[in-house]
């Protein structure tokens, strides 16, 4: 770490300590201490705007560079800037930026010129293909905000590129893998051509000197394959041997090495100990098959990384915040706090979870739910961070920001799922070492036996055995299927935290479900309209419902939302609309009547004996006209999903903390045989344990937070993906779409996955059982062994890929982005 970066750290620490000291009084426990620290750090960041405290100044502050606190923030800078050598007092930094709006190499040259004209920029290079720029700048003379403004003035957009380092690493890796693969495959083709005469000619057709010429040519072309393309196998084998363990690379490296030594001997000394047969063609083909498999695997890994990066990059960097005095300011999205009012333009993603405070729009929530259709959002509706505002500019009030948002939780979940190893793989690892040792022993024994029977064939039998047993297919059997299935489930609304959950889901016998928030939605539904005033024969239930719905559109109260959603609003014009907190809505209608919608006494009712559920009243000029009763709303697909699971042989059982009567009613609607109301977390736990005691595989589907101990006890557990609960739930999987039918579909896929895994294992076992004896008795030449090995791996991978559903193609996504950009440019 160089001087200036260390200074920044020191500065941050100083600020942090000071802030914690002053706020010590309100720290209650460890958890809150962390929150306080975070807040202190946020406050600390805003110091950067004042010149005296600026850690970047390196002794002297730049005279005429105005500060933009967002991008010049040291904490922000660290993510996309590398500190370079310090020459005397000068701090040289190198920043990576992503450029938007660039279409060709000419644009790149323009941006480069513009950047170099900014004083303090030492060097700039812009890549049109990668849409990014690297800028070297002097921290004593300029700030990133200065050259970002220069780029914007030239008509392009620039944002900090935090993923630059990872992308550069990926590019190097992918280039070197492609290079090795090309060398191996191209040389293998040429060697095959040189080897063909030896295969096709009859005895005596090929002159010995021509044969030797062809062999030498093959030998020459094998050298790059061996020394360059096969280097990773030798390096891997050497690493494994040095660590005194055995890996898949060991038999492969021995096989390649033995084949090369024996073939070289045969090529240069045809009458010697190695006989006259050469297998340069088999060797090169084997190496290119293996590298081809690894290349495909690497591509899949990179794609997963890119999609994760794209997901993390979709939150806006800056947002427009409305202050209480009516002014606006542009702030870093990371500095949003609960209660902030944020203006969201069309085409921008919501930066935090919150509710719409003004305006109505449509949002694209596909990142969160997998649902690609836009969702209608009205005033008072909840919007989630990471979803895209599609239709009109709106104002939102922040409910949750930063790591508490559902979006951050989902990104963390995706990271966790990628980095863990399922139990199936762990058991495969246990078997790998004994398997590889027995392969080596078998090859050694076969070589010894053939040395006695027919020394000229001993070497190629050893090579065949080593190549044919290459356990690629076995090691791919389970992970390829599990990963393909998890990817498909993710796109269909079920995100898995543990890949093991697929096995549990397939074997599931009893499913316990929670009621509130799981089978029912968080929102309410109007179930009953009761007319109270029959003096006016012209009014009907429907007309009153319409009036109520039309008035309810002015409020964001949950009961008003239920009326609005439940009934078709009458076409009425309202004026003088007031919302009185705790009472309801009051407005003057077209004919001058004063209408009220809200609490019983406030509307004008006298009697107090009524139903137990939530209710609201509609009154005109102090007379109650109607009473609306509300109940929880079953999810749209709850009945269908429960029926489908029951048809599939799963016993579905309702466990609820709600009172027994209501639980019973829901259970009857769903056609459930068993239900239990009034449960506490302890009795729920006992119910799950007793089912497990009967030897059943038990799954629990809950809302994720009240059911935490039960979720942990069940063999496999799922949580609904509503709100911030995702972040804290410890379930194996999260139903981010909140659609119960997705669980049914996921179970069908899980069952298919288990079938595919057993097919893969069966195929790998049959292949080894059939080919090893053939190789041992000398009926399998090395080229056939290499071909068989590649074919078996390919079979396993293709079989697993049947589980990967259709992907959204890239052009389709590009088209969606284009539509978004178009709407924003016309507004």
């Amino acid at each position, binding site marked *: 770490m160089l001087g200036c970066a260390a200074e920044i750290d020191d500065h941050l620490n100083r600020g942090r300590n000071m802030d914690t000291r002053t706020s010590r009084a309100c720290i209650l426990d460890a958890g809150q201490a962390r929150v306080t620290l975070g807040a202190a750090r946020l406050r600390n960041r805003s110091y950067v705007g004042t010149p005296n405290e600026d850690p970047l100044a390196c002794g002297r502050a730049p005279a005429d560079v105005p500060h933009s606190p967002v991008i010049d923030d040291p904490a922000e800078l660290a993510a996309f800037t590398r500190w370079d050598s310090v020459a005397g007092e000068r701090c040289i930094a190198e920043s990576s930026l992503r450029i938007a709006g660039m279409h060709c190499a000419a644009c790149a040259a323009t941006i480069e010129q513009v950047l170099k004209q900014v004083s303090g920029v030492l060097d700039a290079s812009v890549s049109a*293909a990668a849409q990014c720029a690297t800028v070297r700048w002097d921290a004593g003379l300029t700030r990133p905000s200065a050259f970002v403004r220069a780029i914007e003035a030239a008509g392009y957009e620039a944002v900090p590129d935090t993923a630059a380092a990872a992308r550069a690493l990926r590019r190097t890796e992918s*280039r070197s893998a492609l290079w090795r693969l090309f060398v191996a495959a191209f040389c293998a083709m040429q060697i095959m051509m040189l080897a063909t005469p030896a295969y096709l000619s009859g005895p005596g057709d090929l002159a010995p000197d021509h044969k030797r010429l062809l062999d030498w040519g093959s030998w020459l072309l094998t050298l790059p394959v061996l020394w360059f393309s096969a280097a990773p196998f030798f390096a891997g084998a050497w690493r494994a041997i040095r660590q005194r363990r055995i890996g898949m690379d060991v038999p492969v490296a021995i096989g390649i090495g033995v084949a090369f030594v024996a073939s070289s001997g045969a090529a240069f000394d045809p009458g010697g100990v190695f006989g006259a047969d050469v297998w340069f063609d088999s060797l090169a083909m084997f190496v290119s098959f293996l590298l081809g498999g690894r290349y495909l695997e690497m591509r899949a890994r990179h794609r997963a990384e890119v999609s994760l990066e794209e997901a993390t990059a979709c939150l806006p960097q800056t947002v427009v915040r409305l202050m209480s005095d009516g002014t606006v300011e542009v702030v870093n999205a990371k500095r949003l706090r609960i209660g902030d009012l944020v203006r969201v333009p069309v085409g921008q993603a919501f930066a935090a979870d919150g509710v719409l405070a003004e305006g109505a729009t449509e949002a694209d929530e596909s990142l969160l739910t997998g649902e690609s259709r836009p969702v209608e959002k009205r005033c008072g509706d909840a919007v989630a961070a990471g979803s895209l505002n599609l239709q009109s500019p709106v104002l939102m009030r922040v409910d949750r920001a930063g790591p508490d948002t559902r979006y951050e939780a989902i990104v963390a979940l995706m990271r966790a799922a990628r980095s863990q190893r399922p139990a199936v793989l762990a058991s495969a690892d246990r078997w790998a070492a004994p398997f590889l040792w027995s392969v080596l022993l078998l090859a050694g024994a076969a070589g010894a036996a053939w040395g006695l029977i027919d020394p000229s064939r001993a070497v190629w039998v050893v090579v065949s055995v080593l190549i044919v047993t290459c356990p690629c297919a076995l090691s791919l059997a389970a992970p390829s299927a599990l990963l393909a299935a998890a990817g498909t489930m993710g796109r269909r609304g079920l995100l898995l935290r543990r890949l093991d959950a697929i096995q549990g889901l397939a074997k599931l016998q009893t499913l316990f479900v929670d009621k509130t928030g799981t089978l029912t939605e968080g929102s309410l539904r109007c179930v009953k309209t009761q007319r109270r005033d029959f003096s006016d024969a012209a009014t009907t239930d429907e007309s009153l419902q319409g009036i109520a719905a039309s008035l309810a559109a002015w409020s964001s109260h949950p009961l008003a939302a239920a009326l609005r959603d439940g009934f078709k609003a009458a076409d009425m014009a309202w004026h003088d609309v007031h919302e009185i907190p705790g009472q309801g809505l009051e407005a003057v209608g077209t004919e001058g009547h004063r209408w009220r919608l809200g609490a019983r006494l406030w509307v004008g009712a006298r009697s107090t004996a009524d139903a137990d559920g939530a209710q609201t009243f509609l009154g005109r000029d102090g007379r109650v006209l109607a009473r609306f009763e509300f109940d929880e709303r079953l999810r749209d697909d709850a009945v269908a999903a429960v029926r489908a699971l029951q048809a599939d042989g799963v016993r579905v059982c309702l466990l609820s903390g709600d009172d027994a009567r209501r639980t019973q009613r829901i259970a009857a609607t769903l056609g459930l045989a068993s239900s239990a109301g009034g449960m506490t977390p302890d009795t729920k736990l006992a119910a799950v344990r007793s089912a497990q005691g009967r030897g059943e595989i038990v799954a629990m589907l809950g809302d994720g937070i009240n059911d935490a101990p039960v979720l942990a006890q069940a063999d496999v557990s799922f949580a609904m993906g509503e709100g911030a609960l995702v972040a804290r739930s410890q379930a194996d999987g999260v139903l981010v779409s909140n659609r119960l039918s997705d669980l049914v579909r996921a179970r069908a896929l899980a069952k298919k996955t288990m079938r595919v895994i057993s097919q893969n294992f069966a195929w790998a076992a049959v292949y080894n059982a059939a080919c090893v004896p053939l190789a041992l008795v000398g009926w399998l030449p090395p080229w056939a062994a290499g071909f068989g090995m590649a074919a078996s791996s390919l079979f396993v991978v293709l079989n697993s890929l049947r589980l990967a559903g259709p992907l959204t193609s890239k052009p389709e996504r590009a088209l969606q982005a284009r539509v978004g950009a178009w709407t924003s*440019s016309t507004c």
Partner: protein
Amino acid sequence: MDILYLLIPLSAVLVLAILGVFAWALNAGQFDDLEQHAEQILAADEAAFDRHQAP
């Protein structure tokens, strides 16, 4: 068939030359993004549209 003594070494040299050309293309970044140019028809269209329609 003496021509083989010339042709086979020549083919080996040719292979090495082709590998060299591929190495140059690879390091010049020609294989880094194989999809971008296919999709440019969408992106370029959008840029032209913006220039005329944006207020």
